[in-house]
């Protein structure tokens, strides 16, 4: 029977994720100080915790899987606007990351970190998750009012739907840009275009489809911005793409005022 697990592979990836988490948590902290939380940063932190949970679970590292699961739950609530984005959350995430780092170093030596330390931070994370400020947001929506193609709405993840709704809530204009690139070199052009769109707003989703020829791919890019249509059209002039303003999804009504990330 093959051994499916390579501890060195786990340790290398986990260390890389911890390093990434330290950087993105610092960036989030700076964003809070500046009064502007970047949804991409928050989502990147969530994804790091999500991946750590996945790999620790598959290696049977139960304590690390439980701890990262709690982190993931809280970070999901924060990115979905059910919990506020504040320094309390960032600080406990930093503490959790430091502890996971200790656990990873210990695993590398075949040792374990004390259960008490892990249990204590899990208990604190539980309290945050059960905090009365945790908001219950109705996540269903009506797509009757939107003119975004159902084929596009159908592939948005729950998080992407949420970001679309948050952009609407912030009064942003939603655009759908259509662009075609050769299959051989689409990534460079798409990354450049995406970076540009991120400089004027938020890219909510990128959806590939078959291009006009067998050597091309078409991409629909859904993005929200505070800029008006004339500005966006002017900025995108000269690029080989189509852009149209679309009506987004109706915004669900939270049961309390949300203090989640703003677009």
């Amino acid at each position, binding site marked *: 029977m*093959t*051994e*499916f*697990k*390579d501890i060195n*592979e*786990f340790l*290398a*990836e986990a260390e890389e994720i911890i390093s990434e988490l330290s950087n993105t948590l610092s960036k989030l902290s700076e964003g809070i100080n500046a009064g502007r939380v970047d949804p991409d940063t928050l989502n990147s932190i969530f*994804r790091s915790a*999500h*991946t750590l*949970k*996945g*790999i620790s*679970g*598959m290696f049977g590292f139960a304590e690390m*899987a439980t701890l990262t699961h709690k982190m993931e739950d809280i970070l999901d609530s924060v990115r979905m606007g059910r919990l506020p984005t504040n320094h309390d959350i960032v600080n406990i995430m930093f503490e959790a990351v430091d502890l996971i780092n200790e656990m990873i170093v210990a695993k590398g030596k075949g040792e374990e970190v004390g259960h008490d330390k892990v249990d204590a931070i899990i208990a604190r994370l539980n309290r945050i998750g059960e905090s009365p400020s945790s908001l219950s947001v109705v*996540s269903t929506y009506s797509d009757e009012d939107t003119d975004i193609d159902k*084929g596009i709405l*159908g*592939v*948005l*993840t*729950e998080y*992407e739907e949420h970001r679309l709704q948050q952009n609407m809530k912030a009064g942003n204009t939603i655009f759908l840009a259509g662009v075609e690139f050769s*299959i*051989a070199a*689409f*990534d460079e052009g*798409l990354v450049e275009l995406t970076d540009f769109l991120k400089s004027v707003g938020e890219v909510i*989703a*990128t*959806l*590939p*489809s*078959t291009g006009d020829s*067998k050597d091309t*791919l078409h991409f629909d890019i859904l993005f929200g911005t505070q800029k008006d249509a004339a500005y966006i059209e002017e900025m995108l002039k000269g690029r080989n793409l189509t852009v149209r303003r679309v009506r987004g999804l109706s915004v669900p009504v939270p049961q309390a005022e949300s203090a989640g990330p703003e677009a």
Partner: protein
Amino acid sequence: MSSKILVVEDSPTTRAMIISAIEEVAGGLEIFESKNGFEALKLLPHHSFDLIITDINMPDINGLELVSFVKRNQAYRHIPLIIITTEGSERDREKGLSLGANEYLVKPFNPEMLQNVVKKYIKKG
């Protein structure tokens, strides 16, 4: 006759575990790996894949967008698709299956369970 399988997963550890598990299913499998959806889009025209295994939560394009692309493309829509993801939302699971994914497995997956699912879709040697 060997089967070609494409594994799309951004976590190198998870990708390696998936590949280790499916390598045991049959001899002579050709396994290709992509660390994101963009790499998968570039590989698709160059190989006639018999099965695609993808994660959902990935950077650039998500797994649902990849499933949608494959199932709406005349050249690829016949390829069976397995989604393997860490417990996600029920809505994402429903979307994956309604877009045409054949199976939806939740991490941490049991290697034998993945092998049994893969066996259903590969060519019998």
